[in-house]
């Protein structure tokens, strides 16, 4: 255990339900404050919160509504955020969370309703105005200029100059160093953002927001792209910020994170606030139920696996990554029919390259992989599909769907040229459509119709289209890479159930996921990867989370 940051390899194990490190930010204390109207009237110093920690209402949104054409993205939303408080906005994809925070940050103008910051209810014109009023935002897609250095990115928009003309780069460097020291977010000011790993880029985003005096920090799905370690680091930073008096609005659909850091939760569904609850008064099931509007099964009920013959066998596989470095390095694994094998590991340990090699999308440097009698090392994606490999790719936007095509066309993307979808080279649209109607119903793809373009669907429904296509031809081997990334709770539950069903029908399932929870709840057997090879294999039933975390971190 050499590296202390790696220690948190077991993300969920130590989640504390309320902010630590500052007595005044305890959840019960907060609850008391949040329920007394008197606290609104009192200036912070009289309210007994020392340096303005938890106190007056900082952000007050009243009856906010916003429509895009016929779609009501936000309906009559009323929420408030107090100083030093971490408020989570929880909701499924398309519930209107991003629309809401974009209005706070001035990127979208509300139709009706008011947003008041520190009592000032004049409408927020644009991001510049929002920044001026002490609002900072970390966007879901990082808003950093990739070819510029960290220092340049941080100074953008509020540059200091020497003599009124020349950019003061040295000053910006100093600012970066000071900020990163103060908040414990180490980053080199002179590196180009392009060269930084995603986790560090996010650190830069947060520093960028903090480089302007922020009272309210909005984080839009900050953990979507992070590894478990980076996530824990981020949650720690959030707690520290809140303890020092910064309010945080935090968008996510990961319940664990909500429970770990937030003081209060607003649950959104179909554009409206359907619930507000103090975090200490609730649990994962309660939150999930509020989000989806019905009881959600968070842990999958499944029978014991009955594995049969070996379907996929990989022996001593070597695959290189885009930079021509060895990513998969001597990987060996067997997957049998009727079992789910979970590949657990910190991202970037060759999982992506492994799956791409199996799918025929990446050249194999050496080693064997066979599917029954077929040699997969030389197969292209067309051949692997017809050999019975279903592939749910990690990047569904890039490799799973053609956004501009209809749902119906996307559902036959790998068989459109074959009977019954085509006869003598002529496409049979009625069959394609019928197939789509059936799958839409079976897989609960929520859309206005099967001719809607795939690109206009929400993340969860896009994923359902991919899952429907890859499962409907009853593959011998199903490869699911990060099958529920960026997908809402309801869809996660659904996709998990379908994966288990596929197994019960006799498919061999290879599940690759960065979510340890997902691996643990679905897998019959778990292979832990580190440095491109399997470092341990264990039975899914008696797998220990801490043990896996240790192995994932390279301690074996």
């Amino acid at each position, binding site marked *: 255990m050499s590296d202390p940051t790696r220690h948190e390899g077991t993300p969920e194990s130590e989640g504390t339900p309320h902010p630590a490190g500052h007595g005044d930010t305890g959840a019960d204390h907060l609850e008391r404050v949040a329920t007394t109207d008197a606290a609104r009237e009192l200036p912070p110093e009289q309210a007994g919160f020392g340096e303005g920690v938890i106190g007056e209402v900082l952000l007050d949104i009243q009856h906010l509504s916003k429509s895009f054409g016929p779609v009501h993205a936000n309906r009559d939303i009323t929420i408030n955020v107090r100083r030093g408080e971490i408020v989570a906005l929880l909701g499924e994809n398309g519930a209107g969370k991003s629309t809401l925070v*974009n209005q706070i*940050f001035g*990127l*979208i103008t509300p139709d009706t309703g008011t947003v008041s910051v520190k009592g000032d209810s004049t409408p927020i014109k*644009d*991001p*510049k105005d929002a*920044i*001026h009023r002490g609002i900072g*935002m970390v*966007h879901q*897609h*990082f*808003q*950093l*200029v*990739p*070819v*510029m250095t960290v220092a*340049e*990115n941080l*100074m*953008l*928009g*509020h*540059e200091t*100059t020497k003599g009124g*003309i*020349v*950019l003061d780069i040295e000053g910006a460097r100093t600012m970066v160093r000071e900020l990163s020291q103060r908040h414990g977010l180490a980053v080199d000011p002179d590196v180009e953002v392009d060269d930084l790993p995603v986790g560090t880029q996010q650190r830069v985003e947060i520093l*960028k927001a903090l480089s302007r005096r922020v009272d309210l920090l909005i984080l839009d799905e900050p953990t979507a792209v992070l590894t478990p370690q980076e996530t824990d680091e981020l949650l720690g930073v959030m707690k520290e910020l809140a303890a020092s008096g910064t309010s945080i609005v935090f968008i996510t659909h990961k319940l664990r994170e909500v429970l770990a850091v937030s003081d209060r939760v607003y649950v959104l569904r179909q554009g409206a606030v359907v619930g507000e609850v103090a975090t200490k008064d609730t649990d994962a099931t309660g939150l999930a139920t509020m989000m989806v509007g019905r009881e959600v099964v968070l842990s999958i009920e499944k029978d014991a696996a009955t594995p049969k013959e070996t379907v996929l066998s990989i022996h001593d596989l070597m695959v290189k990554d885009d930079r021509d470095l060895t990513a998969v390095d001597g990987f060996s694994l067997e997957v049998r029919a009727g079992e789910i094998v979970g590949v657990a590991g910190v991202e970037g340990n060759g999982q992506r390259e492994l799956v791409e090699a199996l799918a025929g999308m990446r050249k194999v440097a050496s080693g064997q992989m066979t599917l029954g009698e077929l040699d997969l090392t030389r197969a292209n994606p067309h051949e692997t599909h017809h050999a019975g490999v279903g592939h749910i790719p990690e990047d569904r936007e890039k490799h799973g769907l053609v956004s501009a095509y209809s749902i119906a066309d996307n559902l036959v993307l790998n068989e459109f040229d074959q009977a019954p979808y085509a006869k003598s080279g002529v496409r049979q649209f009625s069959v394609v459509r019928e197939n789509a109607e059936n799958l839409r119903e079976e897989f609960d793809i929520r859309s206005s119709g099967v001719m809607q373009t795939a690109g206009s669907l929400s993340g969860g429904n896009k994923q359902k289209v991919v899952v429907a296509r890859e499962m409907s031809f009853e593959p011998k081997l199903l490869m699911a890479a990060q099958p529920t990334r960026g997908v809402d709770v309801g869809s996660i539950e659904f996709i998990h159930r379908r994966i288990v069903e596929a197994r019960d029908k006799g498919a061999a399932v290879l599940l690759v996921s960065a979510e340890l929870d997902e691996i643990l709840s679905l897998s019959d057997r778990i292979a832990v990867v580190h440095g491109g090879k399997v470092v341990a294999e264990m039975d899914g039933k008696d797998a220990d989370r801490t043990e896996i975390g240790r192995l994932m971190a390279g301690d074996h």
Partner: protein
Amino acid sequence: MTWVTKNRTTLVILAAVVVAAYVFYYAANDIAPSMFVAAWGYAIPLVLASLVGVIGERSGVVNIGIEGQMLIAAFAGFFAAAYSGSLLVGVLSGVGSGLIAGGFLAWTTVRWRMDQIIAGVVLNIVATGITSFYYTPGQILPSLIPNLDIPLLQDIPLVGEVFFSGRSWIASFAIVAAVGVHLLLFHTRWGLRTRAVGEYPSAADTAGVNVERLRLVNVTLAGSLAGLAGVYLSMDASSTFERGMTAGRGFLALAIMIMGAWRPLRAFAMALFFGFVNAVASQLQQSGLGVSGEPSGFLEWTLAAITSPQILATLPYVAVLVLLGLAAGRVRPPGAVGQPYVKGDQ
């Protein structure tokens, strides 16, 4: 010091070029000076025009209408001077018409989000049409644009001879503009914002920079440089306006911008290089190099074909093609070039 190590390759190449130029200058003192002068003369409008491209694309707007902007300005400058009898009126009209043409491009592409290529093509077609239709032969300029010899600097061998004497102020301005745009782009607030807007506009927007306004202003103001390039063509390099006299220089400028990796000073160097290849080509044409009399035999025939004036005249363009091929994959354009920015659409 870090600056030196970071730009080592550039500095080495620069030193080699300078040394080679001086060696050539002293070794072939009969032809070299006039070749260098001709090279710079050809490069002047290209420098100005490529700066227009650099400013536009660094802000995220492709400007293939430089050709049209130059043509309109050459036309407006020449005829305004001829009819008013005042050079100043001519120059101001030329630069002003360049501004207006730039404003047209900026407004259509940034405000109305029209396709940038189509807007540029429209500008070129309109420019050719207007200038051909209203062209009247037989006009003359009231006088020549006076030369600007810079004291002291003009006495430097080679450099002084080429850059600082016997040229009008437009030539000096082109040098100042290249250095100036470089300094502005990389060392000022405007430059940082411009580059951000051209690379990743939503990042600039969320940092409080008005993307649309900056693009509008930049593309419009850059038009004045295209205007000056046009004025140079019809009022300085020659003293007459001809139909289609820009002869593809606007497009060449874009090639030079790419070869210069969207950096003003490198574009300046590339324009000089292109001018020099051009001077070499015309020198070869004049020298009557090749076969005297009727060619006989395959070898002589091939040599005669290669050294025919028509083929030699293509040399600069072949050089551009080769360099563009070498540059491909080594230089990258600004990230958001050609994409209109729609707010709230990250």
